[in-house]
């Protein structure tokens, strides 16, 4: 397979995983107005859950039950949803920023636990050799294409699921909550329950994305799940794509991921081209902060000048 094509496929898989996260966030924020800053945490929970369940036994970590991947992914979603439920209980009756702080806290706590409890997930060294689906094919040249296809099908499924739900009476209540909670509550809707449902379902998608990531990369460690950076990327994707717009959310994920990994590709190239090891070392050093600076500047510009995102909200009602 040609290098460019395989690069694009890898790009597509990761962008697709992010698109699932962005769709989950869109349900929470775009359609309900819930401010989840703990995406990294829900993602991590999903990634670890399926790793524990599907890997073979190992002294390095918990679990190792060798279960089927399908089952692992299911549990990824369920466990993430459970955590969301627990965090929603004390915060969803309060103003939206409490949920923000609490989800950030839960994400950081999850990262700290996986970092420090070596018995759980092998600490900082992480878990390796997480099984891939149809592993016997994994040596085949087009294996990644197969993975991309799986991701694609899942995205389509989630897309239609969310579209269908937001057009149902349930979804209309969510949007009413986003627009005005007090009014919604005053017509007799149990606002808290609807918010909780939206938070839990959105987080289940995030957990599923984590599980997929786990099986795709085959290796996870707490570093990947740094609350702010990771979560931030998903937020930028949604805001750029236009919150409240599912196609926009997917497009935003692909666009931002392209910028993100494209900038890495470029700087890598620069570092390799330069003959002076000092210069290339310097490029590698400034690469990661520069990318984040770039993305944060894009975010501020979008917030200031294109607050509805590039694609805007599709008028639904």
């Amino acid at each position, binding site marked *: 397979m040609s290098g460019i094509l395989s690069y694009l496929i890898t790009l597509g898989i990761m962008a697709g995983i992010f698109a699932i996260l962005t769709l989950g966030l869109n349900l929470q924020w775009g359609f309900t*107005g819930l*401010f989840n*800053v703990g995406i990294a945490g829900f993602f991590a929970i999903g990634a670890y859950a399926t790793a524990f369940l599907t890997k073979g036994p190992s002294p390095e970590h918990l679990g190792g039950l060798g279960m089927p991947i399908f089952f692992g992914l299911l549990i990824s979603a369920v466990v993430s949803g459970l955590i969301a439920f627990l965090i929603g209980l*004390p*915060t*969803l*009756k*309060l*103003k*939206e*920023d*409490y949920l*923000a*702080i*609490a989800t*950030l*806290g*839960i994400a*950081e*706590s999850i990262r*700290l*636990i996986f*970092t*420090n409890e070596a018995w759980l997930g092998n600490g900082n060294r992480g878990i390796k050799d997480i099984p891939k689906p149809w592993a016997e094919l994994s040596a085949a040249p087009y294996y990644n294409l197969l993975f991309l296809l799986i991701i694609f099908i899942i995205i389509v499924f989630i897309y239609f699921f969310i579209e269908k739900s937001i057009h149902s009476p349930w979804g209309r209540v969510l949007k009413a909550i986003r627009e005005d*909670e007090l009014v919604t509550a005053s017509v007799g809707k149990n*606002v808290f329950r609807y918010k909780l449902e939206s938070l839990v379902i959105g987080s289940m998608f995030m957990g599923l994305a984590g599980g997929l990531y786990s099986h795709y990369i085959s290796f996870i460690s707490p570093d990947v799940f740094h609350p*702010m*950076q990771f*979560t*931030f990327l998903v*937020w*930028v994707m949604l*805001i750029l794509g236009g919150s409240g717009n599912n196609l926009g959310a997917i497009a935003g994920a692909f666009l931002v991921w392209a910028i993100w990994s494209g900038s890495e590709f470029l700087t890598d190239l620069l570092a390799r081209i330069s003959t002076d090891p000092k210069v290339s070392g310097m490029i590698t*050093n*400034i690469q*990661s*902060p*520069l990318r*984040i*600076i770039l*993305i*944060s*500047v894009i*975010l*501020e510009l979008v*917030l*200031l000048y294109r*607050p509805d995102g590039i694609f805007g909200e599709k008028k639904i009602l």
Partner: protein
Amino acid sequence: MPQLIINGIIMGSIIVLGSIGLTLTYGILNFANFAHGDIMAAGAYLCLFFLGLNVPFVVAVILSMCITAGLGILIDWCIYRKLREKTSVVLLIASIGAALFLRNVVQLIFGPQLVYYSSEIQMAKKLPFGIRIKPDEIFIIAASFLLIIAVHLFLKRSRIGKAMRALSDNMQLAGVIGIETEKIIFWTWGLGCALAAAGGIFLGLEVQLRPMMGWDVLLPIFAAVILGGIGSPYGAMAGGMIIGISQEVSTAFINPAYKSVVSFMILILVLLIKPSGIFGKKERLA
């Protein structure tokens, strides 16, 4: 145990300095500024920069506080001010962007590695009850104490200080009686970020400097603010001390790596029991 309480008071002083600014801007502008921790880090690194120019330490602290005040005002001017008409959550997202921007500019300039203000090793002084304390730590406690007293006098006695508290109570009314609210907001950012810089510097002095240091204190300062009651500077002082001491005392029982989990747990407890905090005036329901 006495030792842990002393350590807690040191950490508490640092958290208090960080949380006063956070609670004031939170109360007045009604948004949670996630960049506040990274403002602290920026202040700490500015001080490192001045020390590199052989500026005496105290002068370096004062210079960093002034410049960080300007930095906070600048961020407000360029970004937050223009988003004030929007919901508080848009501001919150913008502040996450600002946080990562600041953090990575720091990393770009100073690199990702750990740094210390001084390579000198200090001898700890022995006090009764087996307490050991380094001269730096005495400085942190004393300087924080002086700063807190100064803030107290400023908020209680000065026109602008009283107006800050008034804005935090009721921004609309402040406008109605003729206070130019934008001017007071300007000063609030200045004050809050100057104190944050001092807190960041003291944190650098007590632990070390690294670009992520602002992230490390973010949960504790939020916990302090919510525990004390959003918008209440006196609540932040009490909350900061409680969080600082609980974090350090907890290390006697659990892994010190979980310090910020401890402050998070306290935060959740507050949300469950009394979401308006100790000195909070408004019930902030959805």
